[in-house]
């Protein structure tokens, strides 16, 4: 039987990170993954990540994946693909199914990093072709370049639903509506606002009544629900759609851990059946660790740190690293992890209704129910200021662990401070050079550059733009407001792309002066999707 110092199950961000640490300390390490390519969920993530520099913030997910793979190969990690781990037995014997046969290997330590699987909710017609998981949509469009559908209705307003909706639009699909039975949007407000200003309507407190179609989806009927999540008769709305994308949560894939005898607990805050672990991810079975989504649904950023923690700890337990070095490394990693687990969306705050920000500012209810900040609410936040000349306007209103905007500005216009969940503050005294780095670096696409004194009658608004075709200077089109409504005519006066912007283009439009604080997106045509969709049944 083959022996390893460390056997890792799953080559996602947590498994690879654990492997990099352990192999770096000299452990003979193997990583098994059932997929034909490593990286887990990371290669499907094409958006810029939140966090701070230590957490790879403002770097797109798939690029983080490429970095991890390079690090792993430099550290001498052995990655075995198309290899499914089917069991973990006594004495840390592991069975691996590959190429049609079963191999037995033994590890002195085992790290289980199998990630999560997608949840499903039943509704009439849910088994029809055209009803797909959000992960499937990402696989089709971001890995294989095939559009999942033309007109898509998204069910689920968590970060996955929000992020995948935006990615669907980037792939050239139309998102006809975003529907969730919960009364408030579950994901980050900045992700929701990106959709709302493109005209995607949000239907909170709504659920799918049925998917229409005989051989495949041709339409969807949704209804409003009451506080008890019961459908309210007479509230049905119909949408033409060929695809229903389901993003109603993830569950840890913890079966292997259960099988190996780990004490499990049912924790809704962590997504379901999770192993009981200590602070290093070690389970009740000595030498068996759990890291990443399998030990509680979080994010790739935290999964990577958890992996590094377990990898380092395993190396220490097996005598590959001195206590002094272990303490130094783990203290740093634990601090990185803590800084991510703060703010309004921290694991501990799941399900809680938060009324005020850490700064004591009222949370926008409009953002939670409709996906955008209303004009009446906008001036409460410290990122919004009005002054002469060009300046940034930061529409980031929730305490999320994120600060690339602060790092981006070399002219001290933007301050988040030590605590990365604080709201970004615009310094009205600092002089903005118009370099655009903040606009391109903002993971939430929440920063605009506004100049109310552009010319006699007009103001300029610079916004992040990640769609094709890219408008051209001189184009005459329209501006949408935060709600996605067409509010005025707009002329494209500048289009900037740069390697430093990493594929976020900076579009500057000229609008009438009174539209400077309203115009937030550009459309080449005057129709709004919200007006054409959602007919009565």
């Amino acid at each position, binding site marked *: 039987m083959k022996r390893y110092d460390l056997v890792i199950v799953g080559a996602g961000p947590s498994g690879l990170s654990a492997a990099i640490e352990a192999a770096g300390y000299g452990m003979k390490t193997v990583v098994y993954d*059932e*997929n*034909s390519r490593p990286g887990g969920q990371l290669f499907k993530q*094409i958006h810029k990540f939140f966090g701070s520099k230590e957490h790879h913030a403002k770097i*797109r997910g798939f690029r983080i994946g490429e970095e991890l793979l390079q690090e792993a190969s430099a550290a001498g990690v052995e990655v075995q693909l198309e290899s499914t781990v089917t069991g973990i037995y006594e004495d840390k014997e592991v069975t691996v199914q590959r190429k049609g046969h079963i191999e037995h290997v033994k590890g002195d330590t085992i790290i289980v990093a199998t990630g999560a*699987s*997608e949840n499903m909710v039943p509704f009439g017609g849910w*088994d*029809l*072709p*055209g*009803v*797909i*998981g959000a*992960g*499937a949509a990402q*696989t*089709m*469009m*971001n890995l*294989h*370049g*095939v*559009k*999942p559908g*033309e007109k898509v209705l998204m069910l689920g307003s968590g970060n996955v639903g929000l992020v995948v909706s935006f990615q669907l639009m*980037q*792939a*050239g699909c139309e998102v006809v509506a975003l529907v969730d039975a919960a009364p408030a949007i579950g994901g980050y407000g900045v992700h929701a606002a990106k959709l709302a200003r493109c005209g995607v309507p949000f239907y909170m407190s709504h659920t799918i009544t049925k998917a229409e179609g*005989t*051989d*495949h989806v041709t339409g969807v009927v949704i209804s409003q629900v009451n506080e008890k999540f019961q459908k309210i008769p007479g509230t049905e709305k119909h949408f033409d759609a060929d695809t229903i994308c389901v993003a109603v949560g993830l569950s840890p894939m913890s079966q292997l851990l259960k099988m190996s005898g780990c004490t499990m607990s049912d924790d809704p805050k962590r997504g379901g059946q999770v192993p009981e672990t200590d602070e290093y991810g070690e389970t009740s079975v000595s030498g068996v660790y759990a890291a990443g989504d399998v030990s509680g649904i979080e994010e790739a950023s935290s999964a990577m740190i958890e992996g590094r923690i377990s990898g380092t700890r395993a190396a220490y337990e097996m005598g590959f690293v001195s206590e002094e070095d272990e303490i130094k490394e783990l203290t740093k990693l634990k601090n990185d992890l803590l800084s991510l687990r703060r703010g309004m969306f921290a694991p501990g705050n799941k399900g809680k209704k938060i009324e005020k920000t850490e700064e004591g500012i009222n949370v926008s209810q409009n953002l939670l129910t409709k996906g955008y900040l209303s004009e009446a609410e906008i001036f409460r936040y410290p990122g919004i200021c009005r002054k002469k000349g060009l300046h940034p306007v930061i529409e980031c209103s929730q305490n999320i662990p994120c600060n690339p905007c602060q790092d981006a500005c070399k002219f001290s216009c933007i301050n988040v401070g030590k605590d990365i969940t604080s709201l970004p503050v615009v310094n009205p005294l600092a002089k903005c050079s118009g370099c655009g780095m903040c606009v391109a670096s903002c993971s939430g696409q929440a920063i605009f550059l506004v100049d109310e004194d552009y010319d006699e009658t007009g103001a300029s608004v610079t916004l992040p733009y*990640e*769609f*094709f075709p*890219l408008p051209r200077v001189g184009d005459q089109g329209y501006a949408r407001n935060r709600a996605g409504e067409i509010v005025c005519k707009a002329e494209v006066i500048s289009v900037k792309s740069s390697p430093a912007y990493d*594929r976020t283009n900076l579009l500057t439009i000229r609008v009438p002066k009174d539209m400077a604080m309203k115009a937030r997106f550009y459309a080449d045509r005057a129709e709004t999707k919200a007006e054409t969709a959602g007919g009565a049944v």
Partner: protein
Amino acid sequence: MERRITEHPILGTIEKGRKVSFTYDGKTVEGYEGEPVAEALKALGVMVHRYTTKKHRPRGIFCAIGRCTDCVMVVDGVPNTRTCITSVREGMTVETQVGVVPASQVKDTVLKGGIMA
């Protein structure tokens, strides 16, 4: 209707293998070597991969990562092949599956196989 994304605002040009031919329910169609059969069919507008045994309910891609078995078809004569994790190869045969047999062996005319728009 173009279902393939040729230029993506973030991913740029999406790299593909060699263009190859295979048969889908007897028709010669094209896909790219190495991409999953399910994606090649999706690009052709095929929605139905199989019909269930008893109720003859249509099924198509659901998870796209080999977990749900909704996408199985008869590939090179082998039923229950998960098309989302089987790569396209020159000359392969792909057939809509009814129960566990190819649709062509089923008399029921209601089952027309997939949609090609």
